């Protein structure tokens, strides 16, 4: 990725965050997960407003994303070749109830994630922390001996393998401190004790959450959050189309608001003709990968030539249009997304953006595959439906008949991530890493350990070469060195033709005219909530 961090005219520059005002966030989600153990929220969105972790992300309007100290004084000090990580806490850090934050609270917060009642979070730490087999969380009265807290300011993690990305793992929401004894599993979600700039005043699922200033939070200990608005009203359960229209209209209620949802394609087209709205549209750099997973275990797709035909036949231009045009998507030929260390642009199957059906046909003839009929499993949201039809149409030009199997999100993931390889030949999916590491572009999607059991290797690729590269990269502490290995893995997977990358999506968001510092960095493809402020 270059320096074209944001597209659109509103290339933001950080302006000094003005304090005060009431910000409204319009969100189609019906519920917020306010227990950090269970939250999937990115470090710079909702959880960034409420929780601090040992580390967090520094996302500027330009420049590469970086992991930076948050509660801790450093990103972490590795020892034992990356198996042990040590952190020291800052002083002057408090929970929203006034209690100082200690290393015990950090440890307790992590232990909580092991309780069955609190499962459901991102869990990147779970397979890494040593000695957790059979551990059932702190409510059982036991604690984790692999997390050592020699004093209230120090915390030492013992991992079961060297892990260079640990500072990123530590930045995830699951790792937020939780005060022991004040966080019952059943009710903490409705009345959480927070550590970020905001505290939860009230939360009505499906309706709204009202966040007010955490009066114990100080900007001095936290350079990464602006804490701009004095109050945030989180309007839930919004219809995305209505939400976009609301922001487009920029009425009195919408001027202090932004939308947490992608602007749908139709409204994107509408924005094109509306200069006022265009100035308030923020579009991410091309980032999440939209791809067709090729089920390599399907009998019809065992032959590499057939899979290569799929690579050549795809028409990425049609997919771009179906996604909402260039403002919404860039053609993709690789797996590691722009903005992430290790990305190397290349194209193993050069065919032009409109695809090369002739080449595909000849490959199919070579493979002896005639009258190929493939089932494409597709989530039933409008964009996926549109994209899968574009894919279908392109493949039909190459003589491949595609039957679209439109499924609700659950049915889709049950089919694609289930233990059986049958039921689909192709699956349309998209992926955005949970933190900016090439690891998260590759491992969850292509490691052989991630087949079935609800995990996301839906290409069902089990290539020892790829697994070995993944292992090697993970153990490499040096980010740049690791990046190189990830790039090799990327190419190895593409050589297997186990996936047809379609496009890198650009996510677009709308804000009200009074909202300031609303920008998207190179990663993630979401606005940085923690930076937003209101013009006063």
């Amino acid at each position, binding site marked *: 990725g270059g320096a074209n961090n944001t597209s659109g005219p509103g290339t933001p520059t950080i302006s000094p965050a003005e304090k005060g005002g009431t910000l409204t966030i319009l969100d189609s989600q019906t519920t917020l997960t306010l227990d950090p153990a269970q939250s999937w929220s990115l470090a710079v969105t909702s959880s960034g407003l409420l929780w601090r972790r040992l580390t967090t992300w520094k996302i500027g309007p330009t420049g590469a994303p970086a992991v930076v100290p948050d509660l801790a004084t450093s990103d972490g000090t590795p020892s034992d070749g990356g198996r042990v990580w040590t952190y020291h806490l800052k002083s002057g850090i408090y929970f929203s109830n006034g209690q100082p934050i200690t290393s015990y609270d950090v440890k307790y917060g992590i232990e909580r994630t092991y309780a069955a009642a609190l499962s459901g979070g991102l869990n990147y730490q779970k397979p890494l922390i040593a000695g957790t087999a059979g551990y059932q969380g702190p409510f059982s009265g036991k604690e984790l001996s692999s997390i050592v807290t020699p004093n209230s300011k120090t915390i030492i993690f013992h991992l079961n393998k060297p892990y260079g990305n640990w500072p990123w793992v530590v930045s995830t929401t699951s790792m937020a401190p939780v005060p022991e004894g004040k966080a019952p599993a059943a009710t903490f979600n409705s009345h959480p004790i927070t550590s970020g700039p905001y505290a939860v005043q009230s939360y009505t699922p499906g309706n709204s959450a009202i966040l007010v200033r955490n009066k114990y939070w100080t900007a001095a200990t936290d350079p990464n959050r602006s804490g701009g608005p004095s109050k945030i009203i989180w309007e839930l359960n919004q219809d995305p189309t209505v939400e976009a229209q609301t922001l487009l209209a920029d009425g009195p209620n919408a001027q202090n608001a932004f939308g947490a949802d992608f602007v749908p394609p*139709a409204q994107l*087209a*509408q924005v094109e003709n509306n200069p006022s709205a265009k100035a308030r549209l923020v579009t991410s750099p091309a980032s999440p990968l939209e791809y067709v997973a090729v089920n390599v275990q399907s009998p019809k797709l065992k032959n590499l030539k057939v899979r290569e035909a799929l690579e050549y036949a795809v028409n990425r231009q049609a997919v771009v*249009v*179906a996604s909402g045009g260039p403002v919404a998507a860039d053609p993709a030929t690789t797996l590691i997304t722009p903005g992430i260390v290790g990305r190397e642009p290349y194209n193993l199957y050069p065919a032009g953006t409109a695809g090369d059906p002739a080449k595909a046909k000849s490959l199919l003839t070579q493979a002896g595959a005639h009258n190929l009929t493939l089932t494409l499993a597709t989530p039933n949201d*409008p964009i996926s*439906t549109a994209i899968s039809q574009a894919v*279908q149409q392109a493949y039909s030009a190459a003589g491949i008949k595609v039957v679209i199997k*439109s*499924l609700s999100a659950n049915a889709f993931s049950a089919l694609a991530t289930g233990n059986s390889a049958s039921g689909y030949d192709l699956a349309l999916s998209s992926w955005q890493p949970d933190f900016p590491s090439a690891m998260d572009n590759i491992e969850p999607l292509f490691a052989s350990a991630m087949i079935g059991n609800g995990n996301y290797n839906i290409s069902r690729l089990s290539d020892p070469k790829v697994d070995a590269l993944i292992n090697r990269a993970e153990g490499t502490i040096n980010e740049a060195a690791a990046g190189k290995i990830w790039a090799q893995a990327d190419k190895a997977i593409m050589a297997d033709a186990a996936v047809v990358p379609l496009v890198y999506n650009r996510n677009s968001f709308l804000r009200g005219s009074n909202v300031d510092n609303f920008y998207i960095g190179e990663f993630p493809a979401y606005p940085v909530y923690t930076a937003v402020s209101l013009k006063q």
Partner: protein
Amino acid sequence: MPSKILSGLTVPADVPVAAIVRRSGAFARLLADRWALTGAAVAVGFVLLALFAPFLSGINGNNPYTYHLSALTSSGLPRGPLGGVSASHWLGVEPQTGRDLFAIAAYGARISLLVGVGATVLATVIGTVLGVLAGYRGGLVDTLLSRFTDLTIAFPQLIFMIALGALVPASFPKQFFMIAVIGAFGWPSVARVVRAQTLALRNRSFVVAAQSIGARPLHILRTEILPNLAATITVIATMSIPGAIGTEAALSFLGIGVPPPTPSWGREISSAIAWVSVDPWYLAAPGIALFLVTLALNAFGDGLRDAFDPRMSGRLR
């Protein structure tokens, strides 16, 4: 039964026997009802459109599948006014794909008319049969059928459909399956209304009179009760067609209906709604088609009702 009763009598020569069965009155009235005729014509027109969809859309070399990205702007909107109406695309093109909207509407009529009308007919038949049975027989039959009706209404349809969607293979003949599914869940309202009216009708003297001549229940239902329910049933049936077509679209999203790209009005309408403020013409073709078919069938239904209303007999407009 001995029917020698009138044996000795001679038929007076001037009895026009044909008069007894004359139905021409109703038919003539129907023919004179301009709304009904127009309705019938429009409905037939749509059926023809569906039948000759390949031919009609082929006039311009179109089909509902081919993408015309050149007909779109870079953001996926149709180029040109009225949603891209041109000599080659009579009703414009679909945003994001550039597919020909006339071809989509014409081909879409196939699935939508088949499923919409088929499912409605199925639901109406089931509902009518169960409704008259429950209403007329009463007692245990009514109790059981009524609970069965309640059960069907209260059945967790959404998750049932999702489960079905996962179970049926992608290559299943979806049209008839959809008709069956929509019909199987669509009958309760017909049944409830029919039952209610049957309850009120069954104590009318003419029904008792039919009982008193020893008519079988089936006969009574057919000749005494049903004709008096026909108007209600027609109204409910003609009004449920759009709902069935809408359900067809919903089922298609759940994987039970015909999969894309096979065009259907319901699915086109539901994807066009989001575009209504940018490209309203996209909605126009399938939306107006659905509206017209429903209006036509209702107008025809009204015409039928009037034609067969004995109190209207003799009235010509």
